[in-house]
C-alpha cells in the first residue's frame, strides 16, 4: 500500500510538471497554431535563472525566502523570454507555420548550446530548501515534501488559468480566438496582444515547471527542459490542443501511468506505456480528450 501511495503521489508530481508545460503549449497552439518547440527553452531559462540568482542572493539569510525570490526571478525570465519570442520570432512569421516551427527548434538548440557554453554540460546541484527534501508520512509511505509543492503549484496554476480564461476580457478573447481567430479580429480586437500574453503565460508556466523540475530531480542540466518537453507534447495532444482542463487530465494520466508501469512492469516501460496511451487516444478520439476549446 505504501509503495502504491508513493508511486501515486510521485506520478501526480510528475504530471503536475507536465501540466505546467503543456498548458502553455496547448494555449499557444490552440490560439495561434504555433507548435512551439522553444518551450523547452522557457523551462531551461526558468531553472537556470533560479539556480544562478539563488547563488547571488547571499544578502537574504533565510534559505526558503532566498529560494522563493530566486524562483520569482526565474518566472519573470520565463515571462520575458516568452513575450520576446512571440514579438521577435513568431510575429514576423505569422501564418507561416513551417518557418515558425523551424525557428523555435533553432532557438531551443541555440539556448541549450548557450547554457552549455556558459555553465558547462554537467549536472549542477539545485538549491532546494531543506524542508522540501524532508518527508511526510501518508498511509505508511514516506513522501518527499516537494511532491506536495509540485502538485499544489499545478492545482493553483490550473485554478488561476481557468479563472483568467473565464472571468477576464483577455481570457474571453483567448477562448474565442482558439475557436475562430479571424472572427475575433473582425470584431475589432487586436488579437496580437493576446498572442503575446499567451506566450508570456506559457513562459511563466514552463519556467515554474523548470523550477520545480530542479527540485524534483535535485539537479539541473541543459537538456532537462527538452526531456520534459517531449512528454508535455504528448500530454498536449492527448488532452486536446487548446484545452487547459484536457491538458490537466492528460498530465495526471501520463504521470501516473509512467510511474506505475516503471515499477509494476519494468523500469523503462513507463515511456512505452505513455506512447501506447497516445496511440490509443488518437485512435479513439483523434482530436484528443477536449479538442479546440480553451477552458
Amino acid at each position: 500500500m505504501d509503495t502504491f501511495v508513493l508511486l501515486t503521489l510521485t506520478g501526480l508530481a510528475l504530471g503536475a510538471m507536465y501540466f505546467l508545460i503543456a498548458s502553455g503549449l496547448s494555449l499557444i497552439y490552440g490560439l495561434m497554431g504555433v507548435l512551439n518547440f522553444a518551450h523547452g527553452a522557457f523551462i531551461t531559462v526558468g531553472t537556470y535563472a533560479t539556480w544562478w540568482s539563488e547563488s547571488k542572493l547571499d544578502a537574504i539569510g533565510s534559505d526558503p525566502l532566498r529560494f522563493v525570490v530566486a524562483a520569482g526571478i526565474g518566472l519573470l525570465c520565463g515571462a520575458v523570454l516568452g513575450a520576446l519570442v512571440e514579438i521577435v520570432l513568431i510575429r514576423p512569421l505569422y501564418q507561416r507555420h513551417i518557418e515558425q516551427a523551424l525557428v523555435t527548434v533553432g532557438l531551443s538548440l541555440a539556448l541549450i548550446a548557450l547554457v552549455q557554453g556558459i555553465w558547462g554540460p554537467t549536472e549542477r546541484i539545485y538549491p532546494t530548501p531543506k524542508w522540501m527534501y524532508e518527508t511526510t508520512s501518508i498511509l505508511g509511505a514516506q513522501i518527499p515534501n516537494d511532491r506536495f509543492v509540485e502538485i499544489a503549484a499545478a492545482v493553483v496554476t490550473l485554478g488561476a488559468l481557468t479563472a483568467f480564461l473565464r472571468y477576464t476580457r483577455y481570457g474571453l478573447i483567448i477562448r474565442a480566438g482558439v475557436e475562430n481567430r479571424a472572427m475575433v479580429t473582425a470584431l475589432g480586437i487586436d488579437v496580437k496582444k493576446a498572442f503575446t500574453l499567451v506566450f508570456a503565460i506559457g513562459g511563466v508556466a514552463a519556467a515554474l515547471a523548470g523550477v520545480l523540475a530542479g527540485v524534483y530531480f535535485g539537479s539541473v542540466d541543459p537538456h532537462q527542459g527538452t526531456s520534459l518537453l517531449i512528454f508535455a507534447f504528448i500530454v498536449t495532444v492527448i488532452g486536446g490542443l487548446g484545452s487547459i482542463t484536457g491538458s490537466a487530465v492528460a498530465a495526471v494520466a501520463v504521470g501516473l501511468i509512467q510511474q506505475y508501469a516503471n515499477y509494476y512492469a519494468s523500469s523503462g516501460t513507463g515511456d512505452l506505456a505513455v506512447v501506447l496511451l497516445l496511440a490509443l487516444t488518437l485512435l479513439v478520439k483523434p482530436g484528443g480528450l477536449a479538442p479546440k476549446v480553451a477552458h
Partner: protein
Amino acid sequence: MTEPAAPLLSVRDLHVYLGPSHVLQGISFDVPRGGVTALLGRNGVGKTTTIRSLMGLVRPRGSVVLDGAELNKLPTHKIVGRGVGYVPEDRDVFAGLTVKENLELAERNGSARYDLVYELFPELQERAEQKAGTLSGGQQQMVAIGRALLNENRILLVDEPTKGLAPLLVTEVARVLEHVSETETMLLVEQNLGVVRRIARDAIVLDAGRVTYAGSAEALLSDPDRVRGLLGVAGGGAH
C-alpha cells in the same frame, strides 16, 4: 444645382487573388450614405470575397475609401475601429461561448447598445447564459447580427443573413435589417430577391469578378429579363 453627396464607401479597381484564382478582377463601386445597397450575383462570382476584402480578412489590391479615409492596408481590427460592422456568412458565432459572452466580445467602447440588441432580439436576453453552439441556425444569426449592432457603425457589411433560414425567420431577419437600415448604411449580400426588393435602394451586380450593374435596385428587379440575364434567376420575387 447641388453637388451629389459623396459616397460613404468608395471601392476602386479592387483585385483579389486566392491562390491561383483571380477572384476580383478590378471591381469599382460606390455605396451611398444611408439605406441598403445590395451586392448581388450568382454563386461564386466574388460577393463574399468582396465583403471579406473590405474587412481586410483577405488582402486586396486597389483602393477602399470610407468617408474619405483609405482602409486598404489597415489590419482588420483597425478597419472595424473605423466603424465597419460585419455579419459574416455562416454566422461564425463562438460555439463554446455563451450568448452573453459572444456579445461582450464585440464591445468596442463603453457605449455598447445592449438595449437596442435586446429590443430587436428579445430571445438573446432570455438565452444569455446558453452556449451559442447549442442555438438553432436562426438564433445564431440573431447573435451574429446582434454582435454587429452592439456598436454604432458607419457601415454594416452583412453577408447572406437569410441563408439556410426557415421562411418565417427570413421575414424576421428582413424586418430587423430594414429597421437597422433606417439609421445605418448597409452593404448587403443576399440571394433572396424578395428581401432585396423589400429593403434595398441600390444594387451592385457582380459576375466573374467584375461589376456588371450598379444602380437602382428597383430598376433592376422590375426588369425580369435583366434579372435573368445578370443573376440567372427568374425575377418574380422571393425564392
